[in-house]
């Protein structure tokens, strides 16, 4: 066995960036396409890339051996996911049977976790929208989400799609948010039990009487109808493993720190039932009784023996 370690600190840092951590990095997206794509699909993929510029990787080559829903066709995807350290992917391909197919998927530990295949219809690209350029949302800003429709809860596939869309466009999970940087929103409306209308809008904050500004939506970015065709849920065990949260630091009970006394704790003694305790046999007064009892016993014994 030989130990292979990186020779430079820089290489080590790069490898540590990709290591599994308690608090994870932003999920990167891999955008690629299959053997045949349509014009619509090409623009969908490029616009998706523009929306996620900072943490997305776009491949321009055709990949003919990637078939996400088939057992053998996922190895290439997993390999790319491993190489580029991307845990989300968008794979587009066009065929007569499945026109404008877009497969959105997630990976766990660089193995396929789940997939959703949607068809893109009624696509309107960014260029077709006219708006005041000052409103254009900046790259990397955290988006707001608005999901409209009861089917997002009742229909399994749409529920899955909602989760996947949230994961895709969420970006970094931050604790401190700058309120001036809130400038985009994704509006997803359920049109039928299989179709969802996805719109990307810029936000304009207007003055209102109170400290809370009035929101105005201006349609900016791509808008498309997503028709859910197929999907694959993650397996139960994989789901359980992926949803594990690191244990919160265990609360130590019964320890309080006081400024004057220092670290204090309380000692609990169980109730000593003094009345029920058996008395010890080692009392001086019992000696006579014991002697007499012994004598009685011996006399009884002699009696029985003589009989």
């Amino acid at each position: 066995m030989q130990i292979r370690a990186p020779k430079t600190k820089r290489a080590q840092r790069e490898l540590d960036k990709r290591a599994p951590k308690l608090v994870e990095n932003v999920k990167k997206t891999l955008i690629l396409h299959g053997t045949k794509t349509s014009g619509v699909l090409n623009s969908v993929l490029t616009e998706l890339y523009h929306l996620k510029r900072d943490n997305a990787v776009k491949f321009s080559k055709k990949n003919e051996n990637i078939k996400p829903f088939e057992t053998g066709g996922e190895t290439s995807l997993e390999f790319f996911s491993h190489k580029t350290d991307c845990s989300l992917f968008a794979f587009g391909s066009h065929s007569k049977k499945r026109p404008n197919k877009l497969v959105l998927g997630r990976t766990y530990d660089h193995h396929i976790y789940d997939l959703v295949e949607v068809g893109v219809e009624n696509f309107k690209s960014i260029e077709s929208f006219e708006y005041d350029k000052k409103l254009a949302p900046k790259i990397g800003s955290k988006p707001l989400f608005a999901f409209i429709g009861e089917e997002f809860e009742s229909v399994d596939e749409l529920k899955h799609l909602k989760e996947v869309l949230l994961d895709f466009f969420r970006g970094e999970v931050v604790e401190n948010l700058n309120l001036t940087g809130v400038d985009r929103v994704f509006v997803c409306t359920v049109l039928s039990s299989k179709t969802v209308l996805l719109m990307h809008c810029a936000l304009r904050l207007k003055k209102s009487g109170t400290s809370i500004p009035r929101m105005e939506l201006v349609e900016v970015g791509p808008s498309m109808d997503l028709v859910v065709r197929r999907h694959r849920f993650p397996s139960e065990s994989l789901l359980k493993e992926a949803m594990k949260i690191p244990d919160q630091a265990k609360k130590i009970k019964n320890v309080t720190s006081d400024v004057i006394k220092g670290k204090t704790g309380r000692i609990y003694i169980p109730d000593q039932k003094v009345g029920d305790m058996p008395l010890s046999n080692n009392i001086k007064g019992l000696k006579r009784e014991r002697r007499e009892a012994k004598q009685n016993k011996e006399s009884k014994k002699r009696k029985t023996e003589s009989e």
Partner: protein
Amino acid sequence: MEGTSYQIDLGNLMAYDPNHHFKSIPSSRVELVSHCLEKGTEMVQAIANSLFSLPSTESRDGPVVKLPPPTTKLPREKHLPKPKPPTKWEEFAKMKGIKKRKKNKRVWDEQTSSWKRTHGYDRANDDRDIPILDAKSTDEVGVDPFAKRSAEKKDRVKKQEKNRLENLKKAAKAGALPSHIQLAATALPITGTKKDVPKKASKNELESVAGMVATSTASGGKFDKKLPGEKPPKHSGKHRKFLPVVEGKGIGSKEKQQTEKILNQLLSKSSHEILDVNKAVTMFNVKKEKQRKKDRDANPGKSGKLKPNKKSFKKTSTKKKP
């Protein structure tokens, strides 16, 4: 649609309306879009209401609020890091109660009477810098003490490397190998021979593999399209020649030739003659031929035409004496 509260997840800046559904989808696209935008505006306003009412601090770029953690659970992208098992030294130290001591970056060096660094280039108290070693009564006569010291150091280093490898193997077994380290197998697997260790194919091997494989096609690889840079296979054709099974009566001529050849070789090896007459004759003839050619080239003869030398090099069928 009105008055109902939306499910708001502030950590994700998400709002969900569980009570909306289209009774009938508006016929025109524009109507649909405007309807969706209206609904969207309402929900975004609801998010903004709760967002802007959070306690905010003023920073250089604007008001900053502290978001609550997200409520919708999303799957992780990689597994949780597993805790590293304690190394052999750590276990020993825990058992003995040995605590780590902070070491200084600079140490006093006795040799040069100066402060030198503890580790690294030009370090203090280096084993190799000692110029004189006092001889002890236990030292043998012919042994070089400096060589002995350096050999000891080498041993210590090797032992430490072995221990490090053991610790890493233990960690790898527990699934907690540090991310920047890989363990590669160099030795033989437990069961098997040297043949089983996968060897990296050399360039020449790879170049000839395609040709070798092509012979397994129906037409023996003759009509396969060759890629640019692919070399034709070597050793094309038969490798061995076998005599025909039946060739007339008794011993066939080819078989006779074969046995003769073998016999001659055997006999020549065991013969002790200094001179091989046949060989000597051939060599003489060849030399003469060369000389003649040279003379002819040096001074071209009467005829411009070069006449081929008609000489027969028939081998006589006399057998050599044993």
